[in-house]
């Protein structure tokens, strides 16, 4: 019978040709021992390419399109809302239409809601079921947003998560956790930092971070830049 100890040791060390060509991982997969599901994704991807259903070019272009979107898009929306009260009113009433006014596409978002943080309420967004996130406005979510730790703790004790991220709220401020369980995507409108009177939209946009639009941070203050 084969030496089972050597076999399992070899599997953990060398993902790739040792387990057959179908499972040869692409260059961005091979730096850690692969899980069962990672091997399955790799095998399916290799099959799709081999059968000509998807080309390497199509995959690369789709990846580049995903990676081209950044939080700078959402920051433009926030900065415009800060300087233009009429725009802000339109944004709060019909977010998709208001975002499209700025030439930003929202066609993959079924319904967009922009909740406004005030001195009375602080919003923070999670998707406990999967990783729903306004990707067309923020790009891909960070790994922590998709973690069990975040999903559990933001429901069980949201203030402890906020404190860890540097957000300290008074007891009379309501924390409103938004669990995007369905077709709605949320982009939090953070509070405009004091000391920014007279700033241009472009300058204001530099204060708006991805984390502030998720709700785990405030916008940057002028003195912290």
């Amino acid at each position: 019978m084969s030496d089972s100890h050597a076999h399992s040791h070899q599997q953990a060390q060398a993902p790739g040709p040792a387990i057959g060509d179908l499972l040869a991982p692409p260059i961005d997969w091979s730096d850690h021992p692969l899980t069962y599901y990672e091997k399955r994704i790799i095998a399916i991807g290799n099959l799709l390419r081999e059968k000509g259903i998807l080309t390497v070019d199509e995959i690369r272009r789709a990846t580049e399109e995903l990676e081209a979107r950044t939080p700078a898009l959402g920051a433009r929306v926030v900065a415009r809302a800060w300087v233009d009260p009429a725009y802000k009113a339109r944004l709060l009433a019909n977010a998709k239409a208001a975002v499209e006014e700025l030439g930003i596409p929202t066609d993959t978002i079924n319904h967009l809601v922009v909740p406004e943080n005030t001195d009375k309420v602080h919003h923070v967004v999670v998707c406990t079921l999967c990783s729903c996130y306004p990707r067309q406005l923020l790009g891909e979510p960070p790994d922590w947003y998709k973690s069990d730790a975040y999903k559990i703790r933001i429901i069980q004790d949201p203030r402890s998560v906020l404190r860890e991220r540097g957000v300290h709220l008074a007891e009379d401020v309501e924390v409103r956790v938004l669990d995007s369980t369905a077709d709605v995507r949320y982009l939090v409108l953070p509070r405009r930092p004091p000391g920014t009177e007279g700033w241009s939209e472009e300058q204001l946009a530099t204060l708006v971070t991805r984390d502030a639009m998720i709700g785990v941070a405030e916008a940057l203050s002028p003195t912290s830049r």
Partner: protein
Amino acid sequence: MPYRFAIGDRVRVKALYPPGHVRTPVYIRGKQGVITAQHGHFPNPEQLAYGRDGLPPIPLYGVTFDLAEVLGRPAGRDRLTLDIYEHWLEPA
């Protein structure tokens, strides 16, 4: 298109545990909240997940709960809003 519930209505999430794909998290089932938004009508994801068209579209609500009620312990004035489809809600 019609909505059964109006903003301000008190509702309870049904304590059902069907098999298959649903978008109502287990932690909110049986809990009481209030309708705070009418988001529109969308194809039923429980059908879309199995390759069906999910039509006719069904109403989707923003439902807001006291976090203390959800957790069963004090949580200040903090609240939690989920987006729940109409067939998961009943009057409280």
